[in-house]
């Protein structure tokens, strides 16, 4: 991250709000930039189901021209009884623009989605991520997340 971007992330006010349909192009583009995969249908389908149990939050920051620009987003869903698990808030995605990281935006998104899950009546939140993504895992752990009682298993289908 260049120093100008770092300074902007640390000093510019960040606004969190519920996502709107007109945020989707920027959300899809940021996700594609970070993951290398564009998943327009996936995001539009998730957005269509947004609500109390499927919070969709965006973080905005004022750009150099003063116009608001997407700084990050988080989306999750309360799921119940899959794999025998009692109701729990799943964080499906929590992404911050790489140029704006280290400014606390991810932590604000994390706190906000946790609050939405609390309001939806669940007492636990969960996520899943690549085992070798140590940086993202460190972020979630810094927010108190630990390995839970489940483990993911998979196999190649011949």
């Amino acid at each position, binding site marked *: 991250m260049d120093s100008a971007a770092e300074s902007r992330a640390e000093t510019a006010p960040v606004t969190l709000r519920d996502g709107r349909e007109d945020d989707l192009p920027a959300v899809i583009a940021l996700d594609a930039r970070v993951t290398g995969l564009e998943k327009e249908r996936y995001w539009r389908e998730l957005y269509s189901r947004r609500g109390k149990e499927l919070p969709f939050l965006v973080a905005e920051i004022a750009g150099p021209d003063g116009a608001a620009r997407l700084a990050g987003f988080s989306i999750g869903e309360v799921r119940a009884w899959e794999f025998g698990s009692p109701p729990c808030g799943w964080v499906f995605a929590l992404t911050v623009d790489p140029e704006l990281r280290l400014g606390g935006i991810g932590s604000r998104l994390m706190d906000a989605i946790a609050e939405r899950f609390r309001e939806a009546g669940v007492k636990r939140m969960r996520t899943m991520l690549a*085992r*070798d993504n*140590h940086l993202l*895992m*460190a972020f979630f*752990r*810094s927010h*108190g997340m630990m*390995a839970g009682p489940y483990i993911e298993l998979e196999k190649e289908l011949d």
Partner: protein
Amino acid sequence: MRLQTATRIALYATLELAGNPENQITASAIAEKYGISINHLAKVMRDLGRAGVVESVRGAGGGFRFAGNAKRTTLMDVIQIFENVRGNARAPAREPGEATPAGQALRQVLDEIDAITEATLRSITLDTMFKLIQRQRQDAAGPAPG
């Protein structure tokens, strides 16, 4: 998993110093707090110093200071100074039977365990450890009277 004694001592000393970044702390104070042999600790502190994790402070009182960033330094950064957590992963077969299909299947299972261990240790920073320590303190103190 079990950590070697030197590794545990190194983690205690690093946590102690990183948790008090403004202060220099003497080896004897750390040794006393954790019930560690001062001789053993002195050797560990030399290794931590050579690795750049801590620095010694000369002058009145002397002691040591943490030299890193607690939000970036992970448990693995300290542990791997003293031991190889990944075991024999990807190393050529050297135990009897390791080259056999049974030995390779066993290696596959052990590698899975090692990979999970590595992911855990690489993702827990000293700063996260401070939060876990604080929670332990609160649990030990029990619920507030009221």
